[in-house]
């Protein structure tokens, strides 16, 4: 079980708001018997509305497993995980799928844009899933692409864009249906420093404007400054929750050094 008390390092401004994510004693194992891998060993974690929380830690510490559980794409084995008061364990598979489509936006490490569709069509997917007609979905997708600075490229396919531009499309797709929680997996790992910085800046400015919550899994300590809180994980547990990178790594931490 995590030794970090969720409320311990709470941002006072954030804690005044409601809970977006509540994890208690979350356990997830892979495999069985002798070969069992304990990916999450009793995680306690809260994420507040309007908060940007970064999950950091060494490879294999369970960050991706935790974000998968929070996003409702992976079942936990034990414990409790609710998002905006809805516990995934209480939902049917169809309800959980619908809940994800309505409530959560996703940004992936490798963008996961469908290469045979235009970027506007890619961005329109969450709207189509939420029942909008094609025409209206494309109109709103174009508006969102304009917000992320790609209004002139709506008819391009993803492969015609740079990595940074593709990640901006992915951000537009994550935000277009106005989800309340956005989960991002290593959003800057494939980008250079400057582009990565700009992408997170954009993500924060556009996403946070609607009192949304962001959970970002990252190794990239160059973007830690954007976080309201940073949860450090190790060996399947959250061992520290701090307000800044300096609290986590000390005053001598250099941007680009391993997180």
């Amino acid at each position, binding site marked *: 079980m995590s030794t970090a008390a969720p409320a311990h390092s709470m941002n006072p401004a954030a804690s005044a708001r409601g809970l977006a994510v509540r994890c208690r004693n979350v356990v997830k194992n892979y495999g069985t018997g002798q070969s069992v891998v304990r990916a999450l060993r009793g995680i306690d974690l809260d994420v507040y509305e309007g908060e940007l929380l970064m999950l950091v830690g060494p490879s294999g510490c369970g960050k991706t497993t935790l974000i*998968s559980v929070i996003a409702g794409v*992976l079942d936990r084995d034990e414990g409790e995980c609710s998002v905006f008061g809805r516990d995934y364990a209480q939902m049917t598979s169809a309800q959980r799928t619908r809940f994800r*489509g309505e409530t*959560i936006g996703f940004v*992936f490490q*490798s963008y*996961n844009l*469908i290469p045979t569709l235009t970027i506007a069509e890619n961005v329109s*997917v969450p709207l189509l*899933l939420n029942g909008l007609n094609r025409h209206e979905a494309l109109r709103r997708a174009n508006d969102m692409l304009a917000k992320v600075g790609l209004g002139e490229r709506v008819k391009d396919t993803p492969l015609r864009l740079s990595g940074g531009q593709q990640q901006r499309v992915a951000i537009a797709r994550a935000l277009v249906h106005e989800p309340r929680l956005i989960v991002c997996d290593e959003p800057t790992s494939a980008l250079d420093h400057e582009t990565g910085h700009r992408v997170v800046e954009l993500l924060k400015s556009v996403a946070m404007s609607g009192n949304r919550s962001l959970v970002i899994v990252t190794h990239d300590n160059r973007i830690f400054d954007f976080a309201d809180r940073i949860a450090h994980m190790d060996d399947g547990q959250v061992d520290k929750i701090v307000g800044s990178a300096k609290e986590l790594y000390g005053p001598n931490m250099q941007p680009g050094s391993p997180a």
Partner: protein
Amino acid sequence: MYWLALKMLFNDKAKFFGIVMGVTLASLVITQQGSIFVGILGRTFGVITDMNYPDIWVMDPKVQFIDDTKPLTDTKLYEVRGVPGVASAMPLYKGMIRARMENGLFQNCNLYGVDDSTLMGGPGEMIVGKLADLRMADSVIVDLEGATDKLAKPNPVKGGPKIPLKIGDTLELNDHRAVVVGICKGSRTFQSQPNVFTTYSRAVTFAPRERKLLSFVLVKAEPGENLDELTRRITERTGLAAYTANQFKMLTVNYFLKYTGIPINFGIAVSLGFLVGTLITGFMFYSFTLDNLKFLGTLKAMGTGDSMLMRMILLQAMAVGVIGFGMGVGIATLFGVSMRETQLAFWLTWQLLVVSGGAVVIICMLAAMLSVRKVVALEPAMVFKG
């Protein structure tokens, strides 16, 4: 989402082309080989189709197909005429005869002898001359295929085209003089031999001497008579086999299906077309799904349910199915049209289109099933695994 599914398919041009080619190949082979098969079988009963006069064909019970004549005594004709429900019954001679042509070569022909007085059972459609001219001395009517090809006269100029038979030309049928009084239209026969029509009394003089010469009795039923009931009654009263035209066609077809290698040969070709089409389509479609697995997983994570993903895959499969089927049938039809003037048997029936379409549906369903299994088993959490 269906629109996106189709765009994903159509915009992956290499895969789309490959999948469509697989379906097209299967559809083409099944339709084209099937049409030739049906065309060949159709030729086995072409005479029954052409001779549209009789409602019922009466014959020796041991007859297995149209060319398998087992002569009856002439008295059988009167027995059939005496069966209640028979409006008229006419004799038909059908046999093989050797024609000697002007250049001294011989050609085997199908000889038909129809009722002298009514000429019923004669060719249904005349191209040149009149059916009634068969009442003239030594007269015969030859079908178009025979008149223009196998019985045509050699060109005096070496290498020149054959000169078709025309009215007034003579033939020597089994040492008897025969005068051509008409050219009729007729279906090509299975052996592609010329059809020669004359009267029954003249046919039996042309034919080699036999004790019995009546091949079939052609029956016209009373108006409103139940044909199945009448065939049963004729059999009961005369001891002969009686079939409606359709039953006789099926008897003939079944003989060829059972005793020749035709269905096996075509069955192998059609099966190979189905198998190869299934393999190509299945492999390409599965490969297309695997290529898109990451994106399907992304859609799943973003809130697309399994049933929607299944419907998207089925729609993609049906789209390539419809396009491939259309292309396959289109190419097969073009092939058939381009071969219309040749000896190739090609008969594209609606039933064949249903079979070919059904095969394409099965191919697409098999291909889609592989992909659907993969997608349903897909964990949406895989999208976070890089």
